[in-house]
């Protein structure tokens, strides 16, 4: 086992362990759990046997396998970012509506100071 392979294996293991631990403690909501587990599983498989990934890349016509990894990672992160900004906008809207409601209610119960 080469040093590079060991490093990849260890860092992937650490990343997967971190995600699983966050999921286990319910710090990541279940609706995101599926996504992260779906990322962790192939990561683990490919870290254990990098040749599998090389063969996959060659099978779909990618000459340099790391390129495929980069493209896939970027696409995934892009999707996550877009989803997050949608979610953030929704939360911001809800917070504002709550703030408006609080302001109106506070006036009604007569403690507007």
């Amino acid at each position, binding site marked *: 086992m080469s040093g590079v392979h060991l490093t990849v294996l260890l860092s992937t293991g650490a990343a997967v362990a971190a995600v699983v631990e966050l999921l286990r403690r319910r710090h990541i909501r279940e609706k995101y759990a599926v996504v992260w587990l779906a990322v962790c599983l192939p990561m683990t498989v490919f870290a254990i046997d990098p040749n599998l990934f090389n063969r996959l890349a060659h099978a779909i016509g990618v000459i340099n396998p790391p390129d495929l990894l980069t493209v896939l990672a970027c696409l995934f992160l892009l999707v996550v970012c877009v989803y997050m900004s949608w979610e953030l906008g929704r939360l911001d809207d809800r917070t*504002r509506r709550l703030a408006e409601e609080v302001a109106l209610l506070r006036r009604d119960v007569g403690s507007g100071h």
Partner: protein
Amino acid sequence: MVVPAWNEEGSIASVLCEISHALPTADVLVVDDFSSDGTAAIARSAGVDVISNVFNLGVGGAMRVGFRYAADRDYDALVQIDADGQHDPAYAPGLLEALNSAPGPALVIGARFDSSEDFPVPRARRWAMRLLAAYLSRLTGCRLTDATSGYRAYNRDAIALFARTYPADYLSDTVESLIIASGAGARISQLSTVMRERAAGMPSQSRARALLYLSRVALMLFLQAIQPRSARRATRAARPAGPTPAFRRATPDQPTAEEKP
């Protein structure tokens, strides 16, 4: 009368005084948008209703509070006026009159006279404003010269519409609300008023901000143009859900007389 105010302690008192002279029968609400100065205290001591936001929501957010307040209490009409003293409350009765009583949402804008000489404006910005005004005039079917004016009157249906849909985004609320209103089939008109210099406080638009503002508006118009039909229908169908009975209390201070003189 709804007065959105943010750190306007230097002008709020005189504005409230002028309002009570111009419209003695109107109920006045100051929406204090998390001011750090004495705005809320001064308004309260002037004897008007004050709602204090729990954090800064911007003019749009403050106005949405005002619209919901008016919708819950079933007011006939609402006048929005700035707290910085540049709007003369003497025009408010005229704005209300211009609303007239035709059915459907309606709003009247208190526009400044063509003031290119009183207020020096960079040429590029003036052109951009003109372009914007022309576009909005076409959209709303009414010649508008001052779409960004925050001096406006709304009828009951417009209050109900904006209690749900008034845009809260930073700086763009005045223009965007016109787009929403015209999308909902509202009658929009304008009345010329004389604007004064701000009585106190800092103007909230520097040159850089104006540029930012205009690019935002351009983006907004683009988004409006590509909006799906279903969303437009949703705005048009945004009918009042009525007052929220769970949050209404039958307190004696509830106004029985309507605002419209």
